[in-house]
C-alpha cells in the first residue's frame, strides 16, 4: 500500500486535489526508472505474456475436425435398426418396377420413425416413394403410405388431398378412413372427422370405431357420454388385440383430461403403456399428465427407456426443471432445436414453443412459435400452448385463434376454459 512519492498521482483525502502530488512530466511518461514500479511493471508484463501463451496453447486445440491416427479407433456407431429384419426383408424385396414393394419399404421406415423417434426414416421413406410421385393410378397401398408420410410431416392439407383421392377409388379402405378421421380432427374439421369414423363401421373392429367416434366426441363437448360409451366397448371387447385396446385406453385418458380428471387420465395412460410398452404416445401422455399433477418423478419413470425424440426430451427437461436437477435434456433439446431452426423447418414448432415457454420461461420467444404451430395443428395441447403464451403476455388478441377453436368445438376441457376466462373471454356453453 506504500506509494513511492514520485509515481502515479493519488488523491490524498487530507491534502485535497490541489496539492502537488505528482510531477506532470513524470506522470505523463510513466516512471520506468522508479524502483518499485519498474519491478511491478516487469512482473505484470511477464505475467501477462505467460497468461497469454497459456491461452494460446489452450485455445489452439479447440474446434475443427479430429484426425484419428489409428485405423482401429472407433469413430462412431451406426443405428442398429439398420439391421431390423423386417426392414432388411423389405429392402431385399424392393424392385424398381414394383410400386407395392416400394410402399412396403416406405411403411417399414415409417414404423421405424415412430419406434426410434428418428426423423431420418421419414426421408428414407420419401426416397422409396419418390419414383412413383407422378404415377397416374398408383396402388392403394402406396397412396396410404404417402398419406401417412404427409401426415407425419404435418402436411395435413396434402394428406387430406391424397386421402380423398384414395377413398374415392377405395371407399372401403379402413386405414384411409382412420387417417382421414385423425387428420380432420387435428385440423379442427370435426364434421369430417366424425363422418370418417362412421364410415369405419363394418370395416374394422367395433372397438376401433367406438374409440374413433369417442375421440371426436371428447373434443366437441361430449366427453362424459363418450367416456361411458368407450368404457362399455373396452369391456365388451376384451379379446381385441393389445394395440387396439391400448389405443382405446389412450383415448379414455384424453377423455378424462377433457373432463378435468388428471389422476384418472394418468391411470389410463399407464394401463395403455403396459399394454403397448413401445408406444411413445402413451408414455408421453402419461408424463404430461404426471407433470400436470406436479409429479415430476412419475413423469421421469414413465419415460424411462424411451428413445430420445423431441417429445421425450422435452418432458424430461420439464421434469428435471420441476425437480430442480439438470440431466442435460434441456441442453440437448436446445441444441437440436437450434439445428432444426437452421433447416428452416416448422415441424417442431409445438416442442419449440413449449420449450421456450416452460423451460426457458420466455413467452415472448414462444409466441411466434405457438402461433405458427397453431396454424398447422389444433389439438388440445396446441390450444393450451397458445392460451398459456397469451396469458403470460396478457395478450388476448394473440389467443384469438385458440378462443375461436374453443367456441367452435365446444370443448369443455376445464384447463382450457379457465385459461380462456383468464384472458377475458366468455365461457363457452351449448351444443355444437
Amino acid at each position, binding site marked *: *500500500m506504500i506509494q513511492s512519492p514520485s509515481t*502515479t*498521482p493519488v*488523491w490524498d*483525502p487530507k491534502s485535497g*486535489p*490541489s496539492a502537488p502530488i505528482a510531477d*506532470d512530466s513524470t*506522470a*505523463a511518461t510513466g516512471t520506468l526508472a522508479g524502483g*518499485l*514500479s519498474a519491478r511491478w*511493471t516487469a512482473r*505484470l508484463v511477464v505475467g*501477462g505474456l505467460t497468461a497469454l501463451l497459456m491461452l494460446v496453447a489452450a*485455445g489452439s486445440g479447440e*474446434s475443427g*475436425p*479430429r*484426425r484419428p491416427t*489409428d*485405423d*482401429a*479407433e472407433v*469413430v*462412431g*456407431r451406426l443405428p*442398429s435398426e*439398420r*439391421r431390423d429384419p423386417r426392414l432388411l426383408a423389405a429392402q431385399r424385396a424392393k424392385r424398381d418396377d414394383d410400386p407395392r414393394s416400394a410402399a412396403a419399404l416406405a411403411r417399414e421406415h415409417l414404423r421405424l420413425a*415412430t419406434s*426410434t423417434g428418428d*426423423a*431420418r426414416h*421419414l*426421408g*428414407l421413406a*420419401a426416397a422409396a416413394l419418390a419414383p412413383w410421385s407422378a404415377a397416374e393410378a398408383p396402388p392403394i397401398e402406396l397412396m396410404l403410405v404417402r398419406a*401417412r408420410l404427409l401426415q*407425419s410431416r404435418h402436411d395435413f392439407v396434402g394428406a387430406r388431398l391424397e386421402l380423398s383421392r384414395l377413398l374415392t377409388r377405395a371407399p372401403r379402405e*379402413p*386405414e384411409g378412413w*382412420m*387417417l382421414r378421421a*385423425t*387428420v380432420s380432427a387435428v385440423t379442427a374439421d370435426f364434421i369430417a372427422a366424425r363422418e370418417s369414423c362412421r364410415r369405419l363401421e363394418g370395416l*374394422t373392429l367395433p372397438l*376401433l370405431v367406438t374409440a374413433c367416434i369417442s375421440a371426436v366426441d371428447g373434443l366437441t363437448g361430449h366427453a362424459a357420454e363418450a367416456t361411458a360409451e368407450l368404457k362399455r366397448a373396452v369391456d365388451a371387447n376384451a379379446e381385441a388385440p393389445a394395440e*387396439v385396446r391400448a*389405443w382405446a385406453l*389412450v383415448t379414455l385418458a384424453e377423455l378424462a383430461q377433457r373432463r378435468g380428471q388428471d389422476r384418472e387420465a394418468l391411470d389410463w395412460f399407464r394401463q395403455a403403456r403396459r399394454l403397448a410398452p413401445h408406444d*411413445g*404416445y402413451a408414455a408421453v401422455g402419461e408424463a404430461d399428465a404426471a407433470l400436470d399433477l406436479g409429479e415430476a418423478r412419475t413423469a421421469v419413470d414413465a419415460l424411462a427407456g424411451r428413445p430420445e*425424440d423431441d417429445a421425450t426430451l422435452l418432458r424430461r427437461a420439464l421434469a428435471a426443471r420441476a425437480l430442480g436437477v439438470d440431466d442435460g435434456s434441456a441442453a440437448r433439446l436446445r441444441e*437440436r432445436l*437450434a*439445428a*432444426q431452426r*437452421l433447416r428452416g423447418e416448422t*415441424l417442431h414448432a409445438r416442442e419449440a414453443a413449449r420449450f421456450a415457454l416452460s423451460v426457458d420461461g420466455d413467452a415472448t420467444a414462444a409466441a411466434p412459435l405457438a402461433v405458427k404451430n397453431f396454424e398447422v395443428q389444433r389439438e388440445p395441447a396446441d390450444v393450451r400452448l397458445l392460451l398459456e403464451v397469451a396469458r403470460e403476455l396478457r395478450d388476448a388478441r394473440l389467443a384469438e385463434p385458440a378462443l375461436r377453436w374453443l367456441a367452435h368445438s365446444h370443448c369443455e376441457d376445464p384447463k382450457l376454459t379457465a385459461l380462456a376466462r383468464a384472458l377475458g373471454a366468455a365461457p363457452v356453453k351449448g351444443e355444437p
Partner: protein
Amino acid sequence: MKTWWLALALFLLSAQAVAHKSSDAYLRLEPRGQELVGRLDVALRDLALLAPLGDGADVVRWGDVRSASPALLRELASSLQLESTANTPCSAHPTLDGVVNHSDGPYAVFALRFDCGNASPLRLRYHLLAQQDPDHRAIVQLATARGAEHHVLGPAEPELMLAASGDGLFAQLWTSIGRGFQHILEGTDHLAFLLVLVLPLLVLRRATRGWSERAATLAGMLPVITSFTVAHSLTLGLATFGLVTLPSRLVECAIALSVVLAAVDNVRPMLRAERWVLAFGLGLVHGFGFSSALTDLGLPRLALFTALAGFNFGVELGQLLVLCALAPLLLWLAEQPRFGAPTLRYGSLFAAAFGAIWLAERAFDVNVLAR
C-alpha cells in the same frame, strides 16, 4: 391382419411429432482469390447410404471411413459442383480430413478446394444424398467480405449463386471503421474503463490554470490511451484470427472486473502500477471483448485483415471522440476549488458501482439494469 396395421397406424397418427433431426450436412465455404475453400461435414450414418461403412456391424472405425473414402470422394466430386461464370466446371479437390461430433452424432469431415482457373466461381450445385434421402439438406455458411451468409440447399433448391466479390477494399475498410466506431460508442463498459483510467490524470494537477498546464494534462493522457490501444489491438488480433479463444462470459466478466479494479484503485490505491501499465494489462482483456463483434460476422480470412484494421481504427476514433468531448468538462470541474476531489472520488465510486453490477449480471446471468 389389416387390423393389426390399423392399430399401429393409429399410434402414428396421434400426430406425435417424430423427432431427432433430419439429415443435415454442414458446408462451409470461403472464397480465396480464384479458389473456393471450405469443408463439408456429413454424418457417418448418411455416408453409410452412399458406401458400405464397416462390415455389417454397427461400429464404425476410422479405417472403415478411410477405406470407403475413394468411393465417397467420387460421390462428393459429382454431387457438389461449382461452375465458373463461363459455365465451365471448376475442378474439385475433396479430401478426407477427420471426424467431428455434431448434435446428432459423429460426422466425417471433408476438406474442399475448388480451382476455377482464371474465372471466379459463380454457381454452386449440391445434390448429395438427393436420391437416398430427399429430406437431406446442406446448411451452408458462406464467408463473404460483408459477413457470413447462411443458406439451406436441398432437392428443391439445389443451387446457390455466389455473389461476385462486390465491395472494393475501400468500401470494406469504411464499413469496418463504422462498425468499430459504433461498437465503442455502444460499449459503455469500455468507455467507463478508459474514463476511470484518465480521471486522476485530469483531476489531480497543480493548481495553476495556464493553457500550457492544461495542454500538458491532456498530453498526459496520451501514454494511457496509447497503451490501452496497443493492448486491446494485440488481443483483438489474436482472437480474431482464432489464435486465442476464450469463453465470452469469462471475458465479459473480466471486463466488468477491470472497471471495478481501476475505479477502486483511484480511491484506495492498491494496484501498484503506473496508469499506462494498468491500461495495458487490463486493456488486454478488453481486446477479447471487441473481438466477438468481429468474429461473429464470419468473415473470410483475407477480408479479416481489412476488417480488423478498419474496426480497430474505428474503435480508436470513437474513444478519442468521447475523451475529447469529456476532457474540457472534466478539466473545468477539476479547476473548481471544491469539485476536483469529489469528482475523482464519486466519479470513481460511481464507475465501480456500475462495474460491480455488470460483473454480477454477467457472472450470474441476471438482468439488474434494464436494457
